[in-house]
């Protein structure tokens, strides 16, 4: 069974997923970052494949992507790092990145390597559900690498139905119409959107991302959905040199000592 489905079978609330940029801050940090996140109670990781022109990302992920590229990060190196992770860990791994590098690599080869190295899912924000249906569905299905689509408060009912039909692991709900990395509080309007989304009939777990940056926003995500995804805030904490144990502890709203006790 796919590790993401396995996870949600065992855990249906407070699921914590963290996004990290592969090869950031140093080329070989990917493996130890993922392992450390797992040790500190993170349930799933999304590993960002850096791209020179990340359209949907704010400054934080733009700059971590550039650093990773300057470090020499490539898709082949990433697959080797994932194999290294898999020697020690069964944490669900989702790869997230823009379509161009994947397309250039060769979608079929890429999917084959995802399957072989133990990748559990993909998020490619610039493949729309229409393009997926038109040109790419058969390949994803052939290699059984599930693609997770983003759904926003503005996604129409008809599109949402389509997206649900093509999803098999979880729905990535975007908290607001924005690029990544916003740090404000959720507005009353957004809470109404979340309520609306919560009331939808969805046979899959939902994780909320974009703008989840502290324990309060993570708690909001968990109140409405199965859990939350933290990206830019984690990248910022890496830049500031904050320890992973402190960061995860803060997000989960538990004191660092208790996290330490649990992992020891």
């Amino acid at each position, binding site marked *: 069974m796919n590790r993401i489905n396995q996870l949600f079978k065992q855990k249906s609330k407070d699921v914590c997923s963290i996004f990290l940029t592969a090869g950031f801050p140093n080329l070989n940090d990917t493996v130890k970052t993922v392992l450390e996140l797992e040790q500190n109670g993170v349930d799933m990781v999304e590993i960002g494949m850096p*791209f*020179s*022109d990340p*359209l*949907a990302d*704010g400054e934080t992920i*733009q700059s971590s992507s550039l650093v990773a*590229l300057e470090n020499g990060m*490539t*898709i082949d190196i990433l697959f080797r790092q994932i194999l290294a992770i898999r020697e020690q860990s069964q944490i669900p791994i989702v790869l997230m990145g*823009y*379509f*161009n*590098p*994947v*397309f*250039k*690599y060769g979608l079929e080869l890429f999917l084959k390597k995802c399957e072989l190295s133990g990748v559990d899912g993909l998020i490619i*924000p*610039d*493949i*729309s559900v*229409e*393009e997926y249906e*038109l040109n790419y569905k058969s390949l994803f299905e052939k290699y059984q690498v599930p693609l997770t*689509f*983003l*759904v*926003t408060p*503005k*996604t*129409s009912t008809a*599109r949402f139905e389509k997206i649900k039909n093509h999803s098999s692991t979880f729905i990535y709900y*975007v908290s607001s*119409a*924005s*690029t990544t990395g916003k740090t404000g509080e959720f507005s009353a309007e957004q809470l109404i959107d979340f309520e609306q989304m919560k009331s939808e009939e969805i046979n899959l777990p939902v994780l909320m991302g974009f703008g989840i940056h502290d324990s309060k926003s993570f708690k909001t995500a968990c109140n409405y959905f199965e859990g939350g995804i933290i990206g830019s805030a984690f990248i910022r904490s890496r830049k500031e040199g904050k320890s992973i144990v402190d960061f995860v502890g803060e997000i989960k709203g538990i004191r660092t000592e208790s996290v330490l006790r649990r992992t020891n």
Partner: protein
Amino acid sequence: MKFTIDQNGYYGKFGGAFIPELLHPPVEELKEAFYAIKDDEDFKESYLNLLKDYVGRPTPLYYAERLSKKYDAHIYLKREDLNHTGAHKINNTIGQILLAQKMGKKEIVAETGAGQHGVATATVCALMGMECKVFMGEVDIERQAPNVARMRMLGAEVIPAKSGSKTLKDATNEAIRFWINNPSTYYIIGSVVGPHPYPEMVAYFQSIISEEIRTQLFEKTGKVNPDAVIACVGGGSNAAGAFYHFLDEQVDLIIAEAAGHGINSGKSAATSILGTEGVIHGSKSLLMQTEDGQIVEPHSISAGLDYPGIGPLHAHLIETKRAKVFPITDQEAVDAAFNLSRLEGIIPALESAHAFAILEKTSFKNQTIVVNLSGRGDKDLSTYMKFL
């Protein structure tokens, strides 16, 4: 027609809409609005009236006698440089601002390279009383200072794009990011790039160029078609307009692209030669990229051609060998600009100068050809002055 777009927004295998879900609603809204006006007579009337009285169309089709003599051909210049604001860009912004108005939009965002599209956007925003933000690469802000001043005088806010190579590619990224964060804004793309329906829409609004060429050429020569049409391509909007009504005719379509310091110099923007298939700014096309699919920073002396991609229509024309491409170096473009200035008394934009450089590259003996003179050279004087 063999070269029209299909129902999914593709020209052959190029095009489509590779956009994050966040952009889907505004792109869908735009698509519906564009198809509603595309064949609407009232809309067309307001568009053509503004082109006539405000822009100054039709632009002349001028027989360049001394140039013709030099190259032993019958060379006609389509004088897009005589449009209000000095380039073809305003054909598109007039069309899109009318569409934005129809959609009830109040705020406009745009990207610009040389500043011509930025000026054309700032101009129509002033005309319609709309708020205007233009993203422009920091490098371009420096090398195109007069256009920055013009945009500001017209009331637009010029926002420097500081990411990446700080040129057109990055200005486009920033404009798209702004659109994601402000989806009620109308995004006026300046070239035949971007997600469907932009390439089709911009080509449609620029098609007035070839529509006029046909009529004017017939009036002057009795010929229905020229033997060849020559235009420069960055993203490709002026070429799309100049080629549009000749796509299915027996007319050679010839593209000048910016080779920078030379194809193999590492400082070039010759996408058709250096580019491979990929996705840039929301559509599948040819683009300059590394082995790992990272977009390469291009170089051209001309800010308007300094772009690592090419519109999907042009990728299709090149792939199917319908269009022929000549790479033109910075130096060849400058030489062509001086040549045109001294033979015909017309200082062309650096972008357009690339098209004229093709006359040196191949023979058009006794042929009737049209060169699209897409813009005037005032904005490039500081560059030209270095060669005086």
